[in-house]
């Protein structure tokens, strides 16, 4: 009886359907990692540790009432901007890219923080000005997005700046940015493509060109694309079976526990497996949209929608990259790829979603 009460207290702020989807994806992660790491337990065990840390953080955030959450928006954003400027001024140049800040004890990469900080700040800003939204407000919000994005793009870290742009754009979109402006931006984007092309670094152009002809770079990223596509394609409808992927186990697949883990999965579980995995992701995303639809305040709606759409985008970008329709950018497969940082960022996002869902009754509109 007491035990049950305790359990209820502990899980009061955990959204059951969302948790179910997350747990299934995490179990898949461990299963695939075991195969990808050549039937060794070392990476799966480390991943269990990563998951434990990230789940704890998720639980903490889920229990945080929303007004606390809102209060963190400005400090997090300002802190992130200060760090980004500090990086631009005296960041450590690690071999051509200025991304890290040396704090003496440890080096940090402020762009990671801004993945959460930017949408949080924008949602906060819209909430503040909810009553009197004009085009000017969208302009200011866009500025809040573009400042950090420009700083990150200058580092140069094009991948991260594009992903942050996407999550910021989702906030603008959900906040009701007019279709005409969106259309205008789209046209402007197309028109500026040649200019963008001219400011890209050689290696960035190289990665895009390689998409059309992977054999150009048969020792580097092109090789990754070629081998990953072969792995996916040779998986067929039913897959080669667990632990039986030849691409995986004969060392053909590069980075197979991190960015290319989907190739391992796809080779061993085939099209059927892919359908199941896509359904799982779709389930999580749909639950996210339902939470967004239920959300009681402007801030939480924008936040929940942006988190959900960003999660879907990461999934699409990773699977697209592995199956050879997008260029190779360093985006892990959400909740499945090996790694502590991305696991933490993602589950923090889900913690926010759960807090939004489970605290809504307490907030008066």
């Amino acid at each position, binding site marked *: 009886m007491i035990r049950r009460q305790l359990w209820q207290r502990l899980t009061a702020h955990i959204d059951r359907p969302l948790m179910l989807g997350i747990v299934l994806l995490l179990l898949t992660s461990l299963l695939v990692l075991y195969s990808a790491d050549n039937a060794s337990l070392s990476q799966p065990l480390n991943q269990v540790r990563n998951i434990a840390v990230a789940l704890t953080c998720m639980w903490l955030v889920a229990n945080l009432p929303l007004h606390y959450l809102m209060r963190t928006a400005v400090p997090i954003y300002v802190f992130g901007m200060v760090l980004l400027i500090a990086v631009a001024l005296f960041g450590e140049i*690690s071999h051509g890219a200025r991304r890290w800040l040396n704090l003496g004890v440890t080096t940090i990469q402020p762009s990671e923080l801004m993945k959460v900080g930017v949408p949080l700040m924008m949602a906060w800003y819209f909430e503040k000005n909810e009553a009197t939204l004009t085009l000017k407000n969208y302009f200011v919000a866009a500025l809040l997005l573009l400042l950090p994005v420009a700083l990150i793009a200058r580092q140069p870290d094009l991948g991260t700046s594009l992903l942050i742009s996407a999550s910021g754009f989702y906030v603008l979109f959900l906040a009701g940015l007019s279709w005409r402006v969106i259309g205008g931006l789209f046209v402007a984007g197309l028109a500026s493509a040649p200019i963008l092309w001219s400011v890209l670094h050689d290696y960035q152009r190289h990665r895009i060109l390689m998409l059309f002809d992977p054999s150009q770079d048969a020792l580097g990223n092109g090789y990754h694309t070629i081998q990953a596509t*072969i792995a996916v*394609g040779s998986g067929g409808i039913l897959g080669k079976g667990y632990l039986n992927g030849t691409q995986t186990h004969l060392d053909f697949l590069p980075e197979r526990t991190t960015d290319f883990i989907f190739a391992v999965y796809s080779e061993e579980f085939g099209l059927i497996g892919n359908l199941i995995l896509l359904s799982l992701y779709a389930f999580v995303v749909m639950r996210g949209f339902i939470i967004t639809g239920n959300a009681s305040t402007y801030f939480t709606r924008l936040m929940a929608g942006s988190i959900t759409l960003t999660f879907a985008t990461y999934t699409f970008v990773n*699977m*697209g990259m592995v199956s050879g*329709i997008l260029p190779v950018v360093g985006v892990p497969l959400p909740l499945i790829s090996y790694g502590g940082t991305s696991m933490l960022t993602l589950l923090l996002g889900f913690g926010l979603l759960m807090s939004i869902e489970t605290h809504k009754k307490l907030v008066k509109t």
Partner: protein
Amino acid sequence: MNKQVEFKNHQREIFHFQLRLVVSIGFVLVLLAILLIRFVYLQAVRHSYYQTLAESNRIFIVPIVPNRGLILDRNGVELARNFSGYTLEIKPNQTADVEATINELSTLIEVTQKDRKRFKKQLAESRNFETLMIRSRLSDEEAARFVAQQYRFPGVEIKARLFRDYPFGEKTAHLIGYIGRINQTDMKLLEDSDLASNYRGSDYIGKTGLEQSYESELHGTTGIEQVEVDAGGRAVRMLSSVAPVSGNTLVLSIDVKLQEIAEQSFGDYRGALVAIDPNNGDVLAFVSKPGYDPNPFIDGIDTQSWDELNNSPDVPLNNRALRGQYPPGSTIKPFMALAGLNFNTRTPEETISDQGVFYLPGSSRQYRDWKVGGHGSVNMFKAITVSCDTYFYGLATELGIDNIFNYLSRFGFGKKTGIDLEGETPGLLPSQEWKMKRYQQIWYPGDTVSVGIGQGYNLVTPLQLAFATATLANNGVAYKPHLVKEVRSLRSSENRFIAKDPIYGLNIDPAHLDLVKRAMVAVTQPGGTAVYASLGTPYHIAGKTGTAQVIAMKQGEKYDADKIDERHRDHAWFIAFAPAEQPKIALVVLVENGGHGGSTAAPIARKVLDYYLLGKVPKPLAVAEVKEAGEHD
């Protein structure tokens, strides 16, 4: 009324938001559909194509490592070369018990304690799935013995490889540097500069010296071999290949014979020697003593030998010629004299009466000459010849630190020369601004006095002083010093020459140059401070001695070499160029704790000059041959 509007707005907003949400869901469905179509295309429509690729035609892409470029001296003598041999390598992730495997191996092939230590160190630092070397340079017999027993050792293989070798060992160590195994830091650097694919299969990368500075020339382009493998991963046949392109050959301006003679002439002394052709900036010899043998570094030096080198009081790993910063001492005087003439602070004829002590106006602090009692009546010519401190105390004071700073920086003092070797230090040419920044103090007149004889805040590297000497020898026309003369490409059979144009010309009055150069010739003539340097030479040497204090003397204390710990004795300098009338070589010799420039540094310079100008090879001799000739600085 107002309230109602707001309420309506709110309703409308919710409606708008839900519309946006629906569009978002539609967007996600489109993404989903794209992925689905792609998966169906790859896994259902094109499945048999990819299955063929994956199963019946397993193609491995194997990198072929290019041969590293050679490094030759100006006469074509090999300073860094490759030879082929066998190594024994272990793949730790395919070996059940590495320790047991090594023990088993040692019954077949000699595996020393050093090999084991090195292997352990590599294992700790290794990247994933890397093969690690347990033994290198196997004899043919050892290789054959292992091959016969290979089946017993899964994960152990024998490989034919090219080894790097530095035949001159410690004589060229500071110059050539060495290559070493690519570690995680190197790998990250390569990845971030997008070079990682060209280093697939490469195990080594330049770590120091020219091997590091010219890494991009020396490495070459990795080739690709497409190999078909069977189900077990064994190569069955080669399908196609792109041949690797060997690294470029570096031809140095160094004359290795000259380098050897210079190196030997130091005997047991520590120090540095840099010789430059003033007419084009070719560095002819580049010595830092003591050296170290770079060869053990290639495959990872064992901890014990490393500690010995690293903790030695002689600091053999320090490149003194490039990075050692010392007070220039009296070698600064010719440049100071040119500054005095340039700013009309002194005319050549002006004489001072030297009583052996200099006082700043209104101060009782003594600035002593090295010669007790002084040199009597001294003009500029004599001041250089006998290295009169008092004269230069006064000159520096009258010039002022601003003029000194401006003029000396034209000769490259306080700046990197820009030589093609990484890690150069800039030395130090003090200025008012510098002192304020460094010590938050204004510049005092007393600071200028000691700068005049090169004993103040100023610091130079031997390379820097050699550059300044070469520029002086070449009448103010400066060439950037360079070690690599030519880069030879095997691919295009095209030879690129390192820039040979002067970087700038100082407009020095020929009359000023003439005076200073004549005075420097007189330094090596009877009455000068380095008379032994040119005893019996058929050519004229222009030179200047110098001593750099290691510890400061108290007011009124007398320097007595015999009473001072050897490592606290003064450093000896000698700068020179010859033939004085038409210089072909300019050089700097630094002898650490060598005492007087004239007695320890100048004889070394003499041997180098004799070889370079006359082709005379010195008999093996001890450096202390010219003992206490009674000369001073």
